[in-house]
């Protein structure tokens, strides 16, 4: 299992001043490579805590085991929302946490 960075979604946090995922990582293992693209620098240091995924405003990071089934999370005001997305079709399920109030959008499954 690993964190992947979806380069088509990542804008390098151009509006935020700092790379949010790199700044939040408890293991300090997200950094730009020589092409200035963000990469996981030491896989063995990743705890799969998903702090980077949760902080990304563009859903550009995900936890995955096959590169196609993506687990994405976003903390909203009431609770953290989770999304299981299957690529390439983009079919997805929202997982409603027990603390959540209303559903976020009409298309959510589960």
């Amino acid at each position, binding site marked *: *299992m690993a964190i992947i960075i979806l380069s088509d979604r990542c804008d390098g946090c151009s509006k935020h001043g700092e790379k949010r995922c790199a*700044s*939040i*990582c*408890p*293991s*300090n*293992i997200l*950094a730009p490579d020589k092409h200035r693209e963000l990469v996981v*620098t*030491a896989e*063995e*240091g*990743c*705890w*799969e*805590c*998903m*702090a980077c995924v*949760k*902080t990304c405003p563009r859903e550009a990071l995900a*936890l*995955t*085991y096959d590169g196609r*089934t993506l*687990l994405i*999370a976003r*903390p909203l005001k009431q*609770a*953290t929302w*989770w999304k*299981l997305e299957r690529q390439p079709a983009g079919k997805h*399920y929202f*997982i*409603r*946490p*027990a*603390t959540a109030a209303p559903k976020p959008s009409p298309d959510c*499954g*589960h």
Partner: protein
Amino acid sequence: MPLPIETVHTDILVIGGGTAGCMAAITAKKLAPRLRVTVVEKANPTRSGCLAAGVNAINAYLREDGSAEDFLQYIRRENHGLVQPSLILTLASRLNKVTRFLEEIGLPFPKDKHQRYIFRGPRSIHVYGERIKPLLSRQTRLAGAELIDHVVITDLLVTPEQRVIGAAGFSLLRPKFAVFYSRAVICCTGGASGIYPSPGRSWYPPANRGSGYAMGIRAGAKMTSMEMRFVALRIASSMAPTGTITQEIPLPHRNAHGQEINLVGLTTSERLAAILRQEQQTGAPCYLDLSSVAPSQWMKTLTSYLDMCPSFFLDLATAFPSLKPDRLLLAASEPYLVGGHGMAGYKIYPDRNTTLPGLYAAGDVAGGMPKKYVSGCLAEGEIAAESTIAHLLPPPKEHPEVAKRAFQRAIASLASSSGAKPQELHRELHQIMDLYAGGKSSGYELKEGDLKLARGKLKDLKDKAKKIEARTLPELLKAHEFLDCLEVAEVAVEHLLYRRETRWPVYQSRKDYPTRDDHRWLVILNSSRDPQSGDITIEEEKLDKQTSGGMMYGDNYTVRPL
């Protein structure tokens, strides 16, 4: 790379912005609002340490009719008799209070219709704890403490009179070496992963590399019970906790032949041993039988894993949302040293002071108080802050020569160009510990001859590590993480050699002394390393029987054959 030195004077320095560290800072500011309280954290305190992903249960919470004395008896049994009642009782009385504090700062807890917390096990309540760390760090800021992120503390500053006057380390964000002078230091770092190799996802955070232990060992502080390793029984692959399911619904543990394994009446380490024995006999992993779990119940359990271990959810994602698996394979982790589950850590006293004046310890880095978990770490942070303020020493004078020594040690590897890479050296450490000091691949078993080999090989590795090379700040972090693991491993090996009995199966299991010997070994082992000579001395400490009514462990407990 030039590293300018920046000096900071503060009143109380907290090392580590995790559970215990945040609580220590919040308490200190509450008691003494005019004092300057500084928390230094090597990552970002919003999501760092053991609770980076969150937590779905508070595992040390006492029922209304449960007393601190009951908690003590529970730990006495679980710990096979080695307990320090004064540490346990001072903490037990605060567990419920600090849990309510979590609710006060905004963490949601499920409640029953009488607005009471919902129990999951005898001492465990449910919590929707995904946001515990953002809330705790926010509260730390609101309390007025200053949080400094991405600064890696490498050494405590100790005067020739052995008083701790601060700490020093380097920043990961910009070339800078920070020297903190303070009236007291509260060490609240995590335990140690990375002593033994991890075959997949680590049970304990890989960022917690035992740095808090290592800086204490180098400073000459006493460590306790470093032979009590902790090995977790987990769900294979994701290393997710089994308790989330089994505390809720009593599920059978079965061996590969489908036979139920009787675990009734066993302690945690005995249960682990029983399961590993079945695995050995059948040649295949044991499993949790989920056939009796209703699908609706399963969905609730699955989502509660998202609050703590999202990997588990994703592991089952191919089946989502329609299917429930029939079984979950079990696996044992590699050994760790961690004071929140086991007893390894700083030798502390009821006030959470260490053996060095000016230095306190709380949370996973503090020894002698096992099974404290999240609420215990909060309680310990609170006690440490209260005692720190009650016994605050005057502000220390600057000691440039002490700071300079810390600086030189911190950056030594930046100057080297011999090519000993931190990752390569770390792999060598893993190999030594795994093969000769009871790692997973050697069945966790320890033997005197092997341990002596480990001792020699670690010494050679330490010589080799003098030429460790780092070119960038992230590499410098890796270099220090390796050096800290090595420091801790050396002390652990001495402790493992010293205890010539088997106190806890799997955790500390001597092939050459396979039985528990309460007559000889009902003692706590403390060690210290002479900062000058580097020699490690171990001393035995008699159990503190006063507050336990003098009852010996062996009096009411018999060993069950597995």
